[in-house]
């Protein structure tokens, strides 16, 4: 227990300055005043420490005590995380409701992980086994779909001298390790880790596999790789949050960490209501069994918003270290940056662009760099010790203007950019991902994977469809100048087919039970049908078939509704439609005289 006690000398919003803090360290967690408000030291001058307080500071007075806990801000890692909803400093919000009622009051201390709940621990190593940091010593079935692996904590290695199956709480000793010096280390189900330090790993790999999301415009045109980074910037109302929710729901990941950072309270409630009822497409079990929510809504204290991003990614890294594929969604990094700006302003730092601190870019980079595909620590080198952490951040640029410093700093780091477009959103074309300005730098690698695993035609189809969309934009310019009638039939066909790709393929209704998720097979079948129709009509036009008749063939209505066909019927429908396409077009081609 630390004996140092400082005293408050200045209070300005979430910033408190205390003196008598000579023995405290940078980034130590402190307790402020008798109310026990939680804060973190972010600057030191002589014996004065600047503290960002994670709770409302109203009512604080100079002279009140400040105690350091001698520990940096850390998270508790162990069984009980999954399905939980935590605030920015990992206080469980559902427990807080029970203790404090409907509003979040101050100074509440609730342990992040439930101390009384017991978990059944199955050892996977025996007494006498040699283990080192990162090695799995056993597991707990945390939910029906997730085995929570218990790992040997950092800086501990040696021989297991005691380990036993049984029911334990997170604090009870499940194993004892004797190291080379003969010191004994007692292991429990839980470990702690400081949030501002990335958890170590052996080696990082370049990402090469797609993270399948079931969202057609993402998977087909702008895929994100497992272990990659992506950003979704867009003005308000363009559907950022819906995309983030869709990814949290459908992305093929073992664990999803969703950070609601400075966003709406009702959105978090929505997730809390909806996820337990939604089924994971792979296991058929509720999605909540693989989800962790971090909610620091916009009305909650601003300093804790700054911490929420780190809390989230540290938890994500912990599951990555078990060898899982983890996705983290942060909505929105702009609010996080604003929290940085607010603290920076209070510290009277020299501002950079738009009042943001000069270190904005490097902080953002540090966050996204914690993503990746890695070889986990430990003596076991097998394949299931490869962990994946994919990071997807939303950016809310003011007025949708991408020259905003947060958007610009983000774009310099991330590999995938889904540009949301308000014009598309007004047409209720969702997801409103603009196909002309978005990009994915993983495209080529993922094309290879798709050609091998989905269909060898994949990359060709995808490229042809993209070219159509690009040509559409140019042709529309011409139409605007000289009118529709001056176009050749082949150009008119391009316009018509591009419209069909937009409306029948890219447009995806996230509120429709079937359309909300498309498997890669379904995506391929749909795209293949649409593009085949295009290719064949092109040939038919060359053979003097009537343009009007071709584009009003009955098959087109069915192609437009293909997205509403269930996964199990899609193959059959595909075969049928492909035949119908050839047949209906053949009927129109005039017989040669």
């Amino acid at each position: 227990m630390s004996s140092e006690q400082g005293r408050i000398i200045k209070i300005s919003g979430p910033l408190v300055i205390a003196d008598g803090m000579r023995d405290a360290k940078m980034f130590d967690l402190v307790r402020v005043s008798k109310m026990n408000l939680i804060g973190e030291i972010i600057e030191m001058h002589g014996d004065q420490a600047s503290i960002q307080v994670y709770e409302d500071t109203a009512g604080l007075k100079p002279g009140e005590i400040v105690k350091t806990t001698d520990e940096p801000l850390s998270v508790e890692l162990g069984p009980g995380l999954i399905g939980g909803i935590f605030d920015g400093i990992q206080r469980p919000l559902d427990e807080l409701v029970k203790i404090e009622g409907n509003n979040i009051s101050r100074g509440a201390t609730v342990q992040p992980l439930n101390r009384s709940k017991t978990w059944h621990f199955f050892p996977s190593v025996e007494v006498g086994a040699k283990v080192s940091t990162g090695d799995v010593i056993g597991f707990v079935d945390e939910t029906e779909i997730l085995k929570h692996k218990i790992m040997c904590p950092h800086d501990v290695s040696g021989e297991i001298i005691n380990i036993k199956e049984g029911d334990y709480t997170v604090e009870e000793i499940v194993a004892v390790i004797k190291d080379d010096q003969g010191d004994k280390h007692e292991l429990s189900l839980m470990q702690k880790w400081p949030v501002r330090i990335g958890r170590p790993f052996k080696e990082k790999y370049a990402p090469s596999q797609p993270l399948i999301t079931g969202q057609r415009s993402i998977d087909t045109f702008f895929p994100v790789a497992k272990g990659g980074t992506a950003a979704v910037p867009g003005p308000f109302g363009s559907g950022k949050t819906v995309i983030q929710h869709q990814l949290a729901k459908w992305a093929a990941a073992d664990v999803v960490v969703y950070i609601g950072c400075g966003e709406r309270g009702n959105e978090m409630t929505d997730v809390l209501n909806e996820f337990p009822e939604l089924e994971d497409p792979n296991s058929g079990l509720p999605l909540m069994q693989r989800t962790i929510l971090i909610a620091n809504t916009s009305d909650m204290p601003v300093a804790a918003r700054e911490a929420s991003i780190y809390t989230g990614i540290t938890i994500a890294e912990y599951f990555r270290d078990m060898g899982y594929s983890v996705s983290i969604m942060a909505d929105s990094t702009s609010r996080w940056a604003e929290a940085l700006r607010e603290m920076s302003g209070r510290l009277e730092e020299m501002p950079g662009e738009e009042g943001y601190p000069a270190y904005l870019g490097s902080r953002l980079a540090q966050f996204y760099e914690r993503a990746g595909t890695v070889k986990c620590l430990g003596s076991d080198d097998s394949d299931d010790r490869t962990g994946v952490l994919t990071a997807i951040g939303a950016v809310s640029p003011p007025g949708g203007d991408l020259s905003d410093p947060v958007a610009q700093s983000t774009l310099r780091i991330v590999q995938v950019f889904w540009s949301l477009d308000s014009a598309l959103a007004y047409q209720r074309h969702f997801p409103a991902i603009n196909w002309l300005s978005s990009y994915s730098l993983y495209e080529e690698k993922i094309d290879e994977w798709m050609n091998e695993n989905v269909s060898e035609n994949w990359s060709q189809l995808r490229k042809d469809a993209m070219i159509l969309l690009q040509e559409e934009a140019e042709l529309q310019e011409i139409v605007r100048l000289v009118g529709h009638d001056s176009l050749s039939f082949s150009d008119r066909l391009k316009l018509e087919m591009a419209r069909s790709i937009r409306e029948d393929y890219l447009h995806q209704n996230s509120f429709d039970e079937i359309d909300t998720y498309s498997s890669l097979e379904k995506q391929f079948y749909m795209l293949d049908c649409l593009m085949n129709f295009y290719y064949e009509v092109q040939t038919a036009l060359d053979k003097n078939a009537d343009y009007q008749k071709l584009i009003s063939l009955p098959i087109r209505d069915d192609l437009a509704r293909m997205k509403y066909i269930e996964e199990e019927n899609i193959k059959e429908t595909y075969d049928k439609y492909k035949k119908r396409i050839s047949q209906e077009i053949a009927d129109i081609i005039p017989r040669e005289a």
Partner: protein
Amino acid sequence: MAKEYRTIEEVSGPLMLVQDVEDVAYDELGEIVLSNGEIRRCQVLEVSGNNVLVQLFESSIGINIEQSKVRFLGHGMELPVSPDMLGRVFDGLGSPIDDGPEIIPEKTMDSNGLPMNPAARAYPDEFIQTGISAIDGLNTLVRGQKLPIFSGSGLPHNQLASQIARQAKVLDDSEKFAVVFAAMGITFEDANFFIEDLRKTGAISRSVMFVNLANDPAIERIATPRVALTTAEYLAFDLDMHVLVILTDITYYAEALREVSAARKEVPGRRGYPGYLYTDLAQIYERAGRLKDRTGSITLMPILTMPDDDKTHPIPDLTGYITEGQIILNRDLYNRAIQPPIDVLPSLSRLKDEAIGDGKTRADHADTMNQLFAAYSRGKDAKELEIILGEEALSEADRIYSRFSDEFEKRYISQTFDVDRSIEETLELGWDLLSILPKNELNRISETYIEKYYRDEIFSEFWSE
């Protein structure tokens, strides 16, 4: 008796520095006693050692550094609340100004409020019928939602807001309903319009009004929305009422905030507004909502005038990022006498999906809504093309959509401020309009609804000329 200090060191704009104080807390409320005995209110913004920086809610005229005294009250901004507040008019800090008796408080509440725990919230999913097609049909208002009106100077946002306050009802309406109205920096005429309107319809007896007019002290406005929402919280969560809160005008509120920030020489964010404008607005807006274990609800409609009709201005921009959608008024529609001039395409209600459909409004609601949006949007594009190239150059389909968009504006959006359309009427009207389009163009509506509601006779009749 609280200690009185005669140690005012500096008064500058809305700020005042007091030295050598003891035991004063951050955010504490204070009173300044002028030499003539007049009392003005202030609040602590920063404590540094023995010095405090306070913000004056009222004017600094007459404050003398030598003779004026300051005392601190030992608590933050609080509001005495009671059911008797219904039907009364208060100033921007919550003192009665309508010649009625003082409020005998049932309890005293901290007007800053506490953030609602997201795990305690109930998701808003009850449809509110406002009787306005552009809202009910396309941008549905939901109980517990925060839905701002983005307007411009000279546009009829007041008429729209009062129409909503007048007509809003839930379909099985047996519950207690109240209106809390907070005026911040608006003119006497605007405020009077609301008061008269509420009085005419008899709604005044279930309303609470907080009025800070354009000529009232600007800094007082910073407290007004908080005081209003504290009252709303009391009515909703203590007295189980469904409360509609109208805040007008957020633009003036943000300007008052900027005034204080500039006086403190803080590093400004965009357009001189403080970097914490988002957080500050969020702390107001997020107080709307429903709770799992309470009956009442707070539905919030802030009104803001966009400077130069610019949606990317920081105030509408940040508001849009916090609120659950927006209703945008459009000058072009207004000039064409379309009342209310709601620009439905950029308007949005984020919560509508849970509140519409079978059992709430009607099963075909979502589909028709999407189709109307898509068709109107295409029609607008076609109209643009028509302006450049003339009607002749349009393709057949574009011509149809262009006609559709005219009809849609004339019949669906336009309805004037005293017409109250039921949701049935709105949905039927939607089908009347969709039936102008050929059946196979309705690609966002499922077959069953097309069969059930599409009117072939309208299609043939409309295009017979």
